[in-house]
């Protein structure tokens, strides 16, 4: 039975559900009380993406849209109105919704009945009093505490004689991003791990409000600078759906081209991070030099080393001659070839493998519970890739495979990244011959529709969902960005449990997650 048939069957059981078909998606309006039941019925077949807040145009009140999809199928949005500020929690059914509910509670003051751990999440209680709801329509004013001191806000879970918390961060190691961990332990082994993110909370989603489409693209690029192109692409796709913009096939192909270059760069960076954490400095430096080479290619041909400012609504900000494209492809081929040589040599290095194999293992079952995305999920056997499941840009025209591992340990994640790089160069090689002349730099006028639209992109770290609704002036009314960081960091404390302290940095490196991506 397909997912769509199953949905039909479920809907026949409930007469009080209002259904609407939108562009490439189904939207249901359901009473809050029905939510847990529907979610548990849908969750085996439908993939949960996230909770998207919307403003109800008629009542001016907040409503939440629970977004699901099936591979190559339509979107499914379940609309729940937040009349009495209490919505049943679905975290007990779908653990992946845990952080999203906590975030909603902190920013929108929506209470999720049955969630055991609300409060003090995005807005640290040391700086903002509980109950501050900066994203709520009627309380845009925010009161900050005068003298707050950050602390290790962990309540103890481990009950063992002599157990203690090993605090890490927010500022730690060389050029690490700011995030805090509390590792509960009785000595060497991590018995339980707490994570305290949002030290870097810049309130991007709030900042988006009232931005022009161009402004929103610039901000989206800077959510996570290392996957800027993907984030901006997701944002642009949401706008393009809203404005019903047609993008030329050339622009679509070039978007794929640069997106894959970004993937290679990001994977190279994560791989060299893994090598750094295991202390293998020769291959690490060699890989890092390859990454620098790629940054220089990007800088020379796109104008920016991290591809900032490349995405424009309806296309890209510049075009390239066929020679340029050929030149880039040639350099990329050598670069990936050199990198693969190093990575192949690593598979013969026992001391390296010892530190990765059976370390930081997340079984397929655990990974599914957390709803993991991206290479981390695929290394645990979750075959989930938006490029195939919800094709965008020109991805349905190029040929590539999505590698999947089953072990879910550090070495599986390492192999996953290496194999994905091979597929990326494979995609890039196909593009020069497919390019047809056409307009890339857009000039169209733009009139967005007054509703919510989604842009879904497989960034190097995993799927990014960008949901945008615009207002009358064509500015952003609400924006919601569900990043791979928000999903995958949730599983990280689970992955480090029962491993030793010395494995902690290695596991963190194999996850290759960005904190900026999570904190936004």
């Amino acid at each position, binding site marked *: 039975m397909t997912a769509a048939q199953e949905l039909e069957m479920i809907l026949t059981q409930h007469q009080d559900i209002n259904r609407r078909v939108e562009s490439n998606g189904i939207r249901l309006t359901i009473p809050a009380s029905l939510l847990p039941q529907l979610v548990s019925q849908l969750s085996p077949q439908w993939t949960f993406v996230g909770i998207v807040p919307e403003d109800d145009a008629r009542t001016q009140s907040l409503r939440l849209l629970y977004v699901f999809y099936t591979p190559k199928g339509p979107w499914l949005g379940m609309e729940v109105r937040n009349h009495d500020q209490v919505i049943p929690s679905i975290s007990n059914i779908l653990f992946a919704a845990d952080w999203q509910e906590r975030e909603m509670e902190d920013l929108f003051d929506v209470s999720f009945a049955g969630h055991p751990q609300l409060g003090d999440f995005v807005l640290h209680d040391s*700086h903002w009093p509980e109950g501050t709801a900066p994203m709520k329509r009627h309380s845009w004013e925010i009161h*900050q505490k005068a003298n*707050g*001191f*950050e602390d290790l806000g962990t309540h103890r879970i481990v009950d063992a004689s002599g157990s203690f918390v090993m605090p890490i961060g*927010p*500022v*730690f*190691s*060389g*050029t*690490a*991003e*700011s995030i805090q961990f509390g590792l509960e332990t009785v000595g060497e082994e991590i018995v339980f791990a707490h994570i305290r993110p*949002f*030290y*870097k*909370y*810049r*309130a*991007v989603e*709030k*900042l988006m409000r009232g931005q022009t489409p*161009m*402004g929103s693209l*610039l*901000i989206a690029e*800077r*959510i*996570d*600078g*290392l996957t800027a192109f993907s984030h901006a692409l997701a944002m642009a796709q949401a706008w393009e759906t809203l404005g019903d913009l047609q993008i030329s096939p050339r622009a679509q192909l070039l978007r794929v081209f640069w997106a894959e270059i970004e993937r290679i760069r990001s994977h190279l*960076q994560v791989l060299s991070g893994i090598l750094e954490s295991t202390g293998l400095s*020769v*291959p690490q430096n*060699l890989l*890092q*030099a390859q*990454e*620098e*080479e790629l*940054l*220089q*290619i990007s*800088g*020379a*041909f796109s*104008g*920016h*080393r*991290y591809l*900032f*400012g490349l995405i424009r609504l309806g296309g890209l*900000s510049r075009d390239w001659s066929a020679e340029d494209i050929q030149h880039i492809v040639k350099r990329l081929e050598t670069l990936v070839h050199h990198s693969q040589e190093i990575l192949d*040599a690593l598979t*013969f*290095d026992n001391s390296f493998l010892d530190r990765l194999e059976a370390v930081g293992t997340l079984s397929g079952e655990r990974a599914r519970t957390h709803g993991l995305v991206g290479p981390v999920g695929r290394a645990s056997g979750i075959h989930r890739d938006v490029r195939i499941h919800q094709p965008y840009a020109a991805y349905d025209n190029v040929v590539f495979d999505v590698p999947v591992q089953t072990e879910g340990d550090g070495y599986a994640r390492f192999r996953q990244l290496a194999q994905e790089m091979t597929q990326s160069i494979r995609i890039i090689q196909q593009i020069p011959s497919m390019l047809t002349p056409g307009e890339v730099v857009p000039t169209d006028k733009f009139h967005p529709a007054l509703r919510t639209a989604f842009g879904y992109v497989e960034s190097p770290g995993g799927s990014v969902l960008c949901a945008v609704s615009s207002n009358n002036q064509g500015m952003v009314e609400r924006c919601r960005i569900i990043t791979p960081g928000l999903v995958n960091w949730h599983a990280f404390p689970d992955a480090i449990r029962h491993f030793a302290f010395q494995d902690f940095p290695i596991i963190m490196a194999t996850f290759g997650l960005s904190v*900026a*991506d999570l*904190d936004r």
Partner: protein
Amino acid sequence: MLWLRMGLTHPKKTVSSKAPSPLNGLSPGRPAPTPLLDAPPETICPTQALKEHGNVMTVDYTRCIHCRLCHQQPDQNRMSWEEGYQWAQMTSPRLPHSFRHSLHIRVVDAGDCGACLNELHQLASPVYSLHRLGIAFTPTPRDADVLVITGPITVSMKEAVQEAYQAMPSPKRVVAVGTCALSGGLFASSFALAGPLEKILPVDLSVPGCPPPPLALLHAFQLLMGAKSEEMRTQGVRT
């Protein structure tokens, strides 16, 4: 042993050559002062970095994010674009002479998007080989001479930044890296920011850019160490 051989057989990464021009991808470049534009600057620049100064349109580099919007305008509104990387501005004296060959840096991420941090990290790659200048990143501010702050200083990180500064021994210098740390950049109006950095700590050296490329950072650190401009050892960098 394997890696020793591999390191030796890939020596091309350490070849020295003159710093090339144009800087093929080593730096994004930035808008240069241009005769006045036709259009009002605030309609062109998303961060209000363009300022009229006499009959010249100048650029407030603490706000510029290299979005190239001003460069992609029609001719009469186009700002000219300059190559280069020697962007750092020092506002206090360089460190004493004893720091000439040794500088320890603590980097604190205060809401950075990751690009500035990665450029800093990239300095350690063989291409830039930061260590040849005696510069090293330290894990604790107790050992650091220089505090490098990236990102727009979020409220939650403000205290950590202050703690790091107080934990450092004198003499010490504070370097604001990137447009976010200097002005807040695109995030300037966010409620969750305590920055820019100059509201929190005395900034001794500012490195504008979004992100400032590794060469600009190297130039900045060499300024702190008191190297004369002709000695700038960026020519060791390979492209």
